[in-house]
């Protein structure tokens, strides 16, 4: 079965009792048992819910895993993965991970006596050197944010295997349409389902997908014990979103590629960061690793200062000024004043997040309309 067929059918089996072509939304918090001490498949919704389970089956199928767990947000999913570790263990993360993950690792996970360090995952030698004997989990993102850096997931997976630690990949930006980390050797795939999986800016959700049944059991134990599960209404909306995931993602990639090429030739723009451009440092890896497109996130630098970039970001009429990404509506933001404002100026400079950068999340609008909108905004 191909991707679209799986997304529509697996985990969405016909409801046997009513024949409903779309599975019901099971809102029950608890399920009636027939015998004391003999549990049916579902007992209590934190432990398992039919609507959530349907979504988990679809996600496992799309990522090529043995099982998936759906969480209330991407951060709840990442947090659950870190709860596999214990005091004294070390987590090595890529240096361009999502800011919320950075905060989780450095301000929450560290409280349990877990050590955290960052290294650039795009530089395999430096990254390998940062692995410690106590390293239990490696955490990476590709493409990275906001510079769209590309990490060679298969190469990092080999590293992780050699050092006997788990590799977790935040696959939010690529989605399983473009990249399937489990097939490249990763142990855990994490998603902010808030983004492309849901796809309509109307749910918060997260997911972990794994390929090893033993690891699945451990993570299920964590989820059930800590409780950050996805609610049934949101599970329904994510499942509904998955049915158009492939066509959305590929259309959004195509638009992003066109806009990236157009911006590259625009004198008002000094730099375009998009993995689909031949001059992007990660282009060759991306060509191997990403199937059918290079993602729908794109960053560019305007010629001019902080104020000029701010003006551009505030002047669009179709692109809306907001953080987040991955939905049908196109969004625009200035990393220096929005998504990465919590970094001080020196740190921003060190990571290459200049004042002139603008990050776009390309939605599903017609490419001509988006281009016309950017064109007039750049004129601002």
């Amino acid at each position, binding site marked *: 079965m191909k991707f679209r067929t799986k997304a529509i059918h697996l985990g969405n089996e016909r409801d046997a009792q009513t024949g409903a072509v779309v599975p019901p939304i099971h809102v029950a918090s608890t399920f009636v048992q027939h015998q004391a001490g003999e549990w049916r498949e579902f007992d209590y919704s934190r432990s398992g819910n039919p609507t959530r389970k349907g979504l988990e089956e679809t996600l496992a199928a799309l990522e090529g895993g043995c099982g998936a767990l759906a969480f209330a947000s991407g951060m709840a999913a990442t947090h659950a993965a870190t709860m596999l570790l214990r005091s004294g263990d070390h987590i090595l993360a890529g240096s361009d991970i999502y800011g919320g993950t950075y905060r989780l690792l450095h301000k929450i996970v560290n409280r349990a006596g877990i050590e955290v360090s960052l290294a650039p995952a795009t530089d395999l030698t430096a990254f390998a050197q940062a692995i410690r004997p106590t390293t239990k989990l490696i955490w990476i993102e590709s493409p990275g944010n906001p510079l769209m850096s590309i990490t060679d997931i298969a190469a990092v997976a080999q590293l992780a295997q050699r050092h006997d630690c788990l590799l977790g990949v935040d696959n939010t930006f690529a989605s399983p349409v473009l990249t399937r980390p489990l097939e490249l050797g990763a142990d855990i795939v994490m998603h902010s389902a808030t983004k492309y999986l849901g796809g309509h800016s109307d749910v918060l959700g997260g997911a972990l997908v794994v390929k090893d049944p033993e690891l699945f059991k451990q993570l299920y134990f964590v989820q059930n014990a800590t409780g950050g599960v996805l609610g049934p209404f949101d599970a329904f909306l994510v499942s509904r979103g998955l049915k158009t995931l492939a066509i959305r993602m590929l259309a959004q990639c195509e638009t992003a590629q066109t806009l990236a090429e157009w911006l590259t030739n625009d004198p008002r723009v000094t730099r375009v960061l998009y993995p689909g451009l031949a001059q992007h440092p990660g282009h060759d890896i991306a060509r191997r690793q990403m199937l059918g497109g290079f993602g729908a996130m794109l960053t560019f630098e305007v010629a001019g200062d902080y104020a000029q970039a701010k003006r551009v970001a505030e002047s669009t009429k179709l692109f809306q000024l907001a953080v987040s990404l991955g939905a049908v*509506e196109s969004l625009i933001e200035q990393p220096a004043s929005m998504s990465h404002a919590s970094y001080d100026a020196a740190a921003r400079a060190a990571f290459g997040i200049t004042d002139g950068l603008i990050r776009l999340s390309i939605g599903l609008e017609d490419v001509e309309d988006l281009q016309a909108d950017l064109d007039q905004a750049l004129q601002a």
Partner: protein
Amino acid sequence: MTDPTPGQSPPRLGPSTIAIHSGESRQKLAHSITDPIICASTYTFANTQAVIDYIEQKQQREEYGRYGNPGEDVIEKKLAAIEGGEDAVLYASGMAAIVGLLMTKLSTGDEIIFFDECYHRSREFCVKHLTRYGVVTRQVKACDYEAMAAAITPQTKMLVSESPTNPHLSCVDLEKFVAIAREHQVETLIDATLATPYNLRPIEYGVDYVLHSATKYLGGHNDLLAGVIVGSAEKLDAVRNLRGIMGAINSPHNVYLLQRGLKTFELRMQRHNQNGQALAEFLENHPRVEKVYYPGLKSHSYHAEAVKYMRGFGGLVTFLVKDADWRQTANVVDAVQIPRIAPSLGGVESLIEQPLVMSYYEQKPEDRQRFGIPDNMIRLACGLENTEDLIADLQQALER
């Protein structure tokens, strides 16, 4: 979008941009990027003067849930923009929309004429129920324009057709259809459910009312019921009033799902069109298939009209199994693995049915023959699955 820069006529936007943004305000309640679901059954007034201002139409606002709700206002503007019409009225289902329009426009003694290939419940409503109110309904053979013109009398008020028709997918020559109506000064209604405004835009040819079962492609996920009529604000005013009295309004939760479905409208239609065309071509070349009805096939009787009026030909494909009785045909339906056996169409999941069994089981054989529903007919509503998977599935079912 609702708030273009004043004094500047906005450029004509592409179909996806319209489907995503039209009808919505750029700044919404609480600045949320999506419209909130407002479930209220009633809406409060600050004071008596506010009530009076509303009644005197000094202020446009909601009053009571049966007359409309904010989510529905958004979707009506969006659907009107997608269709290229001035206004739209949303209903709880496609049938409610048909009933709502005909009940508004027709009175005792009036006559309507419709092409006979159509959704069987639309026919049933006209023949069994409108007649009870003394409305005369005349059916003429689909796409027989001379017969339609000949059936017109001074009492005729409206000409009605689907395009493409269900399940034969005959395509109406809209220019001829509208010309007849104009000559006799009667109104026209096209049920374009099977086409959608992505593939067919009847208003551009002068059709007065375009109707959709939004349950189908507009919602697109087999998870809601809705219907809509698009037309001029002036003509729809009375329709909206009667809806408020009859009460077949859509619910706020449903309306949100419809709005969400429309965000991927263009993409979904492109895939439905691709799958429909590919499956029609596959079936036409299969030795077990006697005949395929699909507007995108050169062999289709209405291919010329389809090419003239339509951008794509939709996901619905009807075919006849060669030398098969009803049971052998049912065996093909039962052998299919991916499409599910169910009525309806237009959702992401492919559906399959045998019209004889699903919709005409209780009709007399001679009536079925009159409606053109042979025992060996199968209707396949292609969803959004990968084309290769659907073809492989139909192939194994036919070759079993």
